């Protein structure tokens, strides 16, 4: 187990390092970051001033090492636009995004796992067909359109839910559904396929033959094994949601990291943009690492090979 953990940790570390290099070079995509930061109307003196004050005049590897060294100490630099410490801004915005993504993944799992199980118990039944239809339709709905439609019907027509900039729990309902429904088809299909396979296995027949109650067989024996791949998928999707919340957060004007990213990109605030991409990527790496550990804990076969 220790060997497996160390190996995974090494890979995660290498990925994080590579991501940091890519993220750092992102600001050089446009050519000269000082020109991009200064804006179109800037004079040569202003550009030179920005180049000096942000250290863009130093050799690129030196800049990278300096940036990485500071980032490791929690200092992500100062925002060009907000004139504040980037770490502080990100920390104040992060909770909203975490709450949103957490609610979204919870909504997705609560909806999709029972449906997947029900569909697997009776394949080709009415409920199986309903679940399949839901999956096919769900995969084709553009999330931003779905969000607007929900906003129109539930927010404007029926006035059930607040439509934007609300930090109460009601304000999170529509965004969570809009962000979470996209994950349900994948999780449901995986649960269904896993359950179908497990239900045919010998130990389920044994458990049934022992005379265990069907519910115990279903949940304690079957679901526990079928759920293992779902853990990985849910973790990956949770990581994607943190990055994908940019669309939903900007529609509902939720003051989170995604909305911040959108504002930042529109302002051309390069240091902040770098920092957000780095933070979201690191989140993803940590989450998938934890999911791997959880999987290894649930399924001994993984950690042996």
């Amino acid at each position, binding site marked *: 187990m220790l060997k497996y953990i160390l190996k995974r940790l090494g890979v995660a570390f290498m990925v994080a390092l590579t991501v940091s290099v890519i993220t750092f070079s992102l600001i050089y995509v446009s050519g000269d970051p000082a020109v991009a930061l200064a804006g179109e109307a800037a004079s040569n003196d202003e550009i030179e001033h920005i180049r000096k004050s942000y250290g863009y005049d130093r050799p690129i590897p030196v800049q990278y090492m300096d940036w990485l060294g500071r980032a490791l100490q929690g200092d992500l630099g100062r925002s060009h636009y907000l004139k504040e410490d980037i770490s502080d801004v990100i920390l104040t915005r992060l909770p909203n995004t975490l709450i949103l993504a957490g609610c979204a993944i919870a909504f997705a799992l609560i909806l999709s796992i029972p449906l997947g199980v029900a569909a697997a118990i009776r394949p080709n039944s009415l409920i199986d067909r309903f679940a399949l239809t839901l999956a096919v339709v769900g995969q084709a709905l553009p*999330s931003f359109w779905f969000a607007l439609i929900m906003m129109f019907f539930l927010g404007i027509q029926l006035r059930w839910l607040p439509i934007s900039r609300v930090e109460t729990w009601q304000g999170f309902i529509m965004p969570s559904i809009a962000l979470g429904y996209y994950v349900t088809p994948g999780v449901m299909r995986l649960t269904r396929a896993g359950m179908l396979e497990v239900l045919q296995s010998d130990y389920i027949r044994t458990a049934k033959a022992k005379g265990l109650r069907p519910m115990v067989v279903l949940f304690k024996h079957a679901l526990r094994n079928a759920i293992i791949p779902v853990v990985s998928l849910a973790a990956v999707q949770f990581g994607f949601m943190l990055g994908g919340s940019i669309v939903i957060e*900007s529609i509902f004007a939720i003051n989170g990291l995604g909305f911040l990213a959108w504002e930042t990109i529109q302002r051309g605030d390069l240091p902040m943009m770098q920092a957000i991409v780095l933070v979201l990527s690191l989140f993803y790496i940590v989450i998938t690492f934890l999911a791997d550990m959880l999987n290894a804990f649930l399924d001994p076969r993984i950690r042996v090979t």
Partner: protein
Amino acid sequence: MARPETQSITPSGAAPSAADKILEPSPGSQMRRRIFGHYGIMIGGTVLAAIFLIAIFAPLLTPFDPILDQDLAQKLKPPFWHDSPKYDPAHPLGTDLQGRDYLTRLVHGARISLLIGFSAMLISGVIGTALGVAAGYFGGRVDMVVNFIITTRLSMPVVLVALAVVSLIGSSLWIVIWVLGLLIWDRFAVVMRSTTMQVRNLDYVAAAQACGCSTLRIIMTEIMPNVVNHLIVVATLEMAHAILLEAALSFLGLGVQPPAPSWGLMISEAKGMMFFDPWLIGVPGAALFALILAINLLGDGVRDVTAPENRN
């Protein structure tokens, strides 16, 4: 699979004869029957073909130009189902805030979505297939490196990176296509890697190696034909993915730029009028939904029809 079909034709118990051989449906006709009997393929294929034809013949379908024919006096005409005295039969789907015919913009928008979806899918398909097949075929260190590249790519948030890059280098149709194509190859690589691994250890690959075939030849003539059905399924998924991403980018204002009639952009422009004129959002969104649904149905259908284990 062929056996039970033959038996249904032959009278049971009769010795097989030359006549039975002729009666046995060829693999091609069996495949055709499976394709034409599949609801998903038929519905998805028909809708997709219709949208494709609409996109090709877009300029012939309506008398207006999607961008140039602006008339502010004609702005925000309601669509035909609104039953309003303001309705103008010349604009069956009404007009937008600039007085442009909405039907014209909708059919021209199909061109943008299909072009972006198809081109981005091709680019990502080439990258992902090359990486995936190489990893699956060579294994070992190559596999380790490719796996590492895939993991790294997956840990970068697609929408955010695409938005950042587009905002830095400026936006145009082809920039959006290339940025998306270079970002969404991961599923191609993952699927091609695992399917190539399965095919790689089969006897006919070993036979080809024993014959002294070159690696390139083995990959092109032994591996590729046997993984191509998985490739088609992923290609449809990724085409849908690219179209959705383009719509999202355009919706956020950093994809295809106005005045182009991209569906995502149309929804974005109509957002401010959601309160009084919700149909402006409904129409392009429904078109997007129909297109993605059709592509996904087709993809799911291809998987059902080609994967032997899924045949009932």
